[in-house]
């Protein structure tokens, strides 16, 4: 595949030269990759437990409570285990992840009432349900990023497909589809989310589905324009005179040449995704609790104004992520600007 033409390489080089964008890209990607391994970094399950001269690997394997002297067949509660008298014997030890908290575990037996302020144990304190805020922020970041990446992917696909068909076939198809998009885009998005969320459950997939019904519209306008422009270029005519079928012309000849708006809009699509998910969670129409989410933390922060660590830490995280993504978007746009070309 010859996707990396000289032009693409040039653009990539120009993107790297925009330091702010390039470092933002590295930082955000690193954070995202790190968050993919959140279970290993931030978990209340130990890597290894040595209990009564036997080794256990709870992070990879399920052990019932019975194994550690409990009564039930449900999963062992490792946080209570490490504080239990049964465990505090000679020769028993456990190796914990660097941040030994799960985003779902409530530390109800901590002193005072939740939310607990930051401490050596809980760096950013706990939320109203006594769950560790740092763990929730980390897992929330992963969900946010995954959500917006998948959403951007689906939206891009639909945007290309619909805009491409409009631009390539033109005429009546273009006209009809354009009118339908206009009607579609005037649907009040929030009500659709609330309605669908009420009828079906408010799951990750349903939310992506509903949001992707609307996210593609902006991109489809750009793609339509690109296809309209490119289909009249000579190499497309040549491909036609060579007897190549429409599918080949669309996907092999036109699409690779019309990808500029897709790439320049992608970071902004991701920003839009993060914003949308956080807003929905904040309003309570987003992901089902107890899913760790930034929007939900923000709304907790609003309800517990005496516990500023909730709102402040979340706002800082959200702000940083959006800022990094914006820097990347800016850099990409600048790198793709034909007028910025040096040669």
């Amino acid at each position, binding site marked *: 595949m*010859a*996707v990396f*033409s*000289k*032009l693409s390489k040039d653009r990539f080089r120009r993107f790297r030269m925009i330091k702010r964008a390039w470092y933002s890209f590295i930082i955000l990607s690193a954070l995202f990759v790190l968050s993919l391994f959140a279970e290993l970094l931030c978990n209340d399950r130990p890597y290894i437990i040595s209990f009564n001269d036997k080794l256990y690997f709870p992070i990879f394997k399920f052990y019932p409570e019975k194994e550690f002297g409990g009564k039930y067949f449900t999963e062992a509660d490792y946080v209570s285990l490490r504080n239990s008298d049964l465990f505090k014997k000679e020769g028993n030890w456990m190796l914990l992840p660097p941040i030994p908290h799960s985003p779902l575990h409530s530390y109800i037996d901590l002193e005072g009432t939740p939310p607990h302020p930051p401490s050596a144990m809980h760096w950013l304190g706990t939320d109203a349900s006594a769950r560790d805020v740092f763990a929730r922020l980390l897992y929330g970041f992963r969900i946010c990023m995954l959500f917006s990446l998948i959403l951007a992917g689906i939206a891009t696909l639909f945007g290309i497909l619909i805009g491409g068909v409009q631009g390539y076939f*033109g*005429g009546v198809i273009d006209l009809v589809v354009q009118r339908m998009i206009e009607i579609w885009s005037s649907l009040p998005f929030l009500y659709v989310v609330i309605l669908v969320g009420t009828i079906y459950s408010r799951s990750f997939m349903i939310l992506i589905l509903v949001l992707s019904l609307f996210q593609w519209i902006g991109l489809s306008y750009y793609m339509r324009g690109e296809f309209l422009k490119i*289909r*009249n*270029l*000579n*190499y497309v*005519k*040549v*491909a*036609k*005179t*060579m*007897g*190549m*079928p429409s599918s*080949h012309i669309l996907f*092999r*000849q036109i699409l*690779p*040449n019309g990808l500029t708006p897709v790439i320049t809009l992608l970071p902004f699509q991701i920003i839009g995704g993060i914003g949308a998910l956080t807003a929905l969670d904040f309003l309570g129409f987003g992901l089902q609790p107890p899913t760790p989410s930034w929007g939900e933390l923000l709304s907790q922060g609003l309800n517990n104004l005496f516990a500023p660590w909730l709102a402040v830490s979340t706002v800082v995280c959200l702000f940083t992520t959006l800022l990094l993504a914006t820097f990347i978007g800016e850099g990409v746009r600048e790198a793709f600007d034909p007028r910025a070309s040096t040669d």
Partner: protein
Amino acid sequence: MKSTDSEIGTDDYLLQVQDLSIGVEQSQKLLQLTDRVSFKLKKGEIHGLIGESGCGKSISSLAIMGILPQPGGKLLSGKVLFKNEDIFCLDKTSLNSLRGNKISMIFQEPFAAMNPLIRIGEQMLENFDYHQTKIDRHQKIRELLNEVGLTDHARILQSYPHELSGGMLQRIMIAMSLLLDPDLLIADEPTTALDVTVQAQIMSLIVRLCKERKMSVLLISHNISLMAQYADSISVMYAGQIVETNEISAFLTDASHPYSRGLIQAIPTLDKAGDKIIPISGQVPEPGKFSTGCRFMERCPVSAAICSNPPPEKNIGDLGHYRCHY
């Protein structure tokens, strides 16, 4: 589909364009671009189609392959018979198998005619993908590159279009159009974008290949000296109509239509050096603003009152004809 034209054995002709009228629909108005264009091509013949820019040459030539202008292109009347089969009656599949395979085309700007993101080698190979052939693809590409005078195969096939010069790309275009041994080559201003020395090379290459392969060529140009040198017969197009058709030698010595005479007088030649070249004054009228009578009337040096009526078609000898009141 058999032709109704029975004066001469119709099977002698590879291509017959009969009364081809094409229009485009723009904001609910129909604009006629070509008006009853007719010409014929024998096997192995080079037929020139000449005329100023915007008189419908390229539109007619693309229509030969069944490609109408986008968006809104419409076939108003007429037919294109290729090997006695009407192009516009073919379904999509057989049309696609004809294009590139039996009829192929060279475009005027080689830079614009190549996809900037695909290596030359891949672009050439892709042309085989949609046509059934038993020939060795790589062998064929190498053979043709040799024929068009390109020897540095490995480098060329690995290059992107922007890494090669215009002359090289035009040769590659020609090689590409010959990959599947077409019977008809449409060369739409094949040399306009090139400098003069390369022009001569490219043209003699086309002529040689045409003679060797018994291929017919429809040569489209606005350069009459090019036609004089290479074409066997010629059709002159003006404002969407063919105004004169003749053998090239007869045409050059004794053109009948005032527009043809104007074109010939406008050629700069060495023996006329020092004399003023006589240009044809004015411009080709835009489509939609054609007069109902003779379309050349406003620019014609011999126009008279009668010219506001549609001009009759008159024969010259056996093969030629022209469209004028005089």
